[in-house]
């Protein structure tokens, strides 16, 4: 450390440490880090290349202690995680789903993590539309848990939202969910207790609900599920989670190892001219992806709860946390196509944008043709008139005044002085979407005890769980959400509403031209987004940010759909 750094550390860090409850003790489990990718030896978290920790933060650790799954256990004693198995279920079938510790080997390092039925991702549940199944969930991990059936318009009592629809399932206990699938599409399941830990450690899986309609999607030669997430590793160590609540509370935990289906090197082999259908889910805690397929043409077909009104060719696929997209990709020529996440990151030290490209894997295309040539079908951009007809019922409500207004903002207390100073300085510009964690040192040290993310009802001033919205079953509710650009740290928020479906009818006053039913919508910084909610499913339903650390820092409310 240079004398200059020391000077700043003395001028900012040490006086602060005396004034605030930030800990300077060594962090359990952090004393044996080796082979760190960036930063100086002994640095507790990986920093972007060329960026040192802010001097005033050196030596601090987040308050509230730490947590890692299977503390004290030798990962070698745990069963190795298995790849996902497809479980096809029909009306009335029952599935036993057990969350338990597993051993995962990532980049040559063994970690104690979690899996459903020993798999990461968990079993791919494939059911026909309108089926109802029972899922007996068994919690065998070292935290309370529950399973939320994300996007599924099921009965309220099976929504898996502790504190709203059930009590957390204690370690060793079980809970039975009755899951009804009224809509065809791509869904996923994950815990709704300490998502920042449990989901990040591998507790997630997909559900594909098949329509009975022939030709629901255009023909494709193959289908592939890709669950995207990331993992934050420092050398051979998982960066610990907050013990009392989430750390990384400002921006959410953004990993430095990008995973597809739990593995760092996705590989797929297809034939020349093949149309491959990808079912994409963003299961990451905080990262928004911008995914492309090595220049192969990509056609977006469907999203969370339905097909689009009309298919579109797109240069890339943007997925906020919890969003899903179904895309068709045609690989016309033999060769190797890199699947990349390409973003323009902000280097806050330089005040510049910098391209950042992560390769998630490769698609190898061999020279032989597939059995069927679907090139012509791929080239046709279908209009899904059934989707349009159904949405037509809601179109008269598109221009009505909002029924509800929410403002997204944040309050902070007790953050390190250096963090406050730097973030106060860095207020000239906030990107509408922060694609990476450009300030991991500040982010790591922020916890849910210091950061309170807020949904504020503009009409009443009530915030988060004090919001007490009641709407009538069958009503069509227009909700305008404004993401305050003037808060201490404005950031995008993927807002998820349980148990209902919604349309994004306008963004910043510009009507959406191609509708699709959603359950999660990205609200960029400074944007006003109008959501039209089909409030048809009675019960008490959570509305929250799906950045796990923001949820864990309070950013949730409940909407009651009265019978």
């Amino acid at each position, binding site marked *: 450390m*240079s004398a*200059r*750094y020391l*000077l*700043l550390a003395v001028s900012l860090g040490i006086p602060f440490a005396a004034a605030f409850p930030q800990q300077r003790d060594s962090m359990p489990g952090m004393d044996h880090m080796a082979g760190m990718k960036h930063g100086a030896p002994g640095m507790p978290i990986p920093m972007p290349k060329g960026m040192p920790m802010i*001097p005033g933060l050196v030596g601090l650790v987040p308050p509230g202690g730490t947590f890692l799954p299977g503390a004290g256990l030798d990962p070698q004693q745990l069963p190795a995680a298995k790849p996902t198995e497809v479980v096809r279920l029909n009306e009335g079938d029952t599935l036993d789903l057990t969350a338990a510790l597993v051993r995962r080997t990532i980049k040559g390092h063994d970690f104690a993590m979690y899996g459903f039925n020993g798999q990461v991702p968990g079993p791919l549940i494939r059911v026909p539309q309108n089926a109802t199944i029972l899922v007996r969930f068994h919690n065998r991990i070292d935290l309370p848990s529950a399973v939320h059936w994300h996007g599924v318009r099921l009965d309220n009592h099976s929504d898996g939202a502790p504190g709203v629809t059930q009590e957390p399932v204690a370690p060793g206990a079980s809970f039975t969910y009755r899951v009804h699938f009224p809509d065809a599409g791509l869904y996923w399941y994950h815990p709704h207790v300490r998502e920042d830990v449990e989901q990040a450690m591998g507790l997630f899986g997909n559900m594909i609900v098949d329509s009975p309609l022939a030709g629901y999607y255009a023909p494709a030669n193959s289908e592939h599920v890709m669950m995207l997430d990331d993992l934050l590793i420092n050398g051979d160590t998982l960066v610990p989670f907050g013990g009392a609540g989430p750390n990384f509370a400002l921006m959410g935990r953004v990993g430095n190892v990008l995973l597809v289906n739990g593995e760092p090197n996705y590989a797929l082999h297809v034939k020349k001219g093949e149309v491959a259908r990808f079912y994409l889910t963003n299961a990451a805690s905080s990262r928004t992806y*911008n995914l*492309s397929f090595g*220049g192969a043409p990509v056609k*977006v077909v469907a*999203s969370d709860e339905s097909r*689009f009104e009309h298919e*579109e060719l*797109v*240069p*890339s*696929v*943007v*997925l906020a946390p919890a969003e899903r*997209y179904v895309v068709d990709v045609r690989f016309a020529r033999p060769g190797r196509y890199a699947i990349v996440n*390409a*973003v*323009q990151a*902000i280097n*806050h*030290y*330089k*005040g*510049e*944008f910098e*391209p*950042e*490209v992560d390769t998630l894997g490769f698609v190898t295309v061999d020279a032989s043709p597939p059995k069927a040539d679907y090139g012509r079908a791929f080239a046709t951009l279908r209009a899904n008139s059934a989707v349009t007809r159904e949405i037509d019922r809601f179109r008269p409500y598109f221009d009505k005044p909002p029924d509800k207004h929410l403002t997204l903002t944040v309050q902070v207390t007790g953050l390190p002085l250096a963090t406050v*100073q*730097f973030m106060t*300085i*860095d*207020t*000239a*510009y*906030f*990107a*509408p*979407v922060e*694609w990476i964690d450009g300030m991991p040192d500040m982010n790591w040290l922020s916890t849910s005890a210091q950061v309170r993310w807020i949904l504020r009802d503009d009409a009443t001033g009530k915030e988060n769980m004090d919001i007490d919205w009641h709407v009538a079953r069958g009503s069509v509710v227009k909700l305008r959400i404004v993401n305050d*650009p*003037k808060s201490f740290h404005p950031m995008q928020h993927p807002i998820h509403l349980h148990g209902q479906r919604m349309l*994004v009818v306008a*963004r*910043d006053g*510009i009507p*959406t031209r*191609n509708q*699709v039913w959603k359950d999660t*919508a*990205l609200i*960029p*910084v*400074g944007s006003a*987004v109008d959501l039209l909610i089909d409030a048809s499913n009675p019960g008490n339903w959570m509305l929250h940010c799906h950045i796990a650390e923001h949820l864990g820092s309070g950013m949730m409310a409940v909407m009651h759909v009265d019978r």
Partner: protein
Amino acid sequence: MIHVRRLALAVAVPFLVGAGPYDIPLFSTPKAPAASGSARLVFAQSPFGIAVTADGHAQYDVQVTATALPAPSSLGAYSVYVAWAATPDLQRWERLGTITNGTTTVGHVALDKFLLVITAEANAAPKQRSGPTVLHGTSPSGWLQSFLNHPMFRGITG
């Protein structure tokens, strides 16, 4: 002089922050001193809600609102006003479209930082900018600050 510029920045920033991450105040030039205007960046239509290029650049349409622009012909042999996006080093200019008094949407622009420049031109599709500038502004991203250059830390963090 450097300190004067920094002072100006310190005064300007709070105003721009108040305008949010999409708003561009436009400033007039001696060629059209009575003109005024502003612009707002809106994401181009996309099935994902936000429009992004494959390499990650946000893709915006630009809503330009102008008032008191004189007739282009009053400035010389010009017939239209054209909006341009230019990189901060002025090496790359992209023609966005023609504008008039009132609000006009032009675009797309997919530059991280850019200047928005309105010039009078002889026709609606000039290959390059050649006429006089009447309004100009900076994309909000142009205000992104370097920690290392901030006076508070300059000379300390090296």
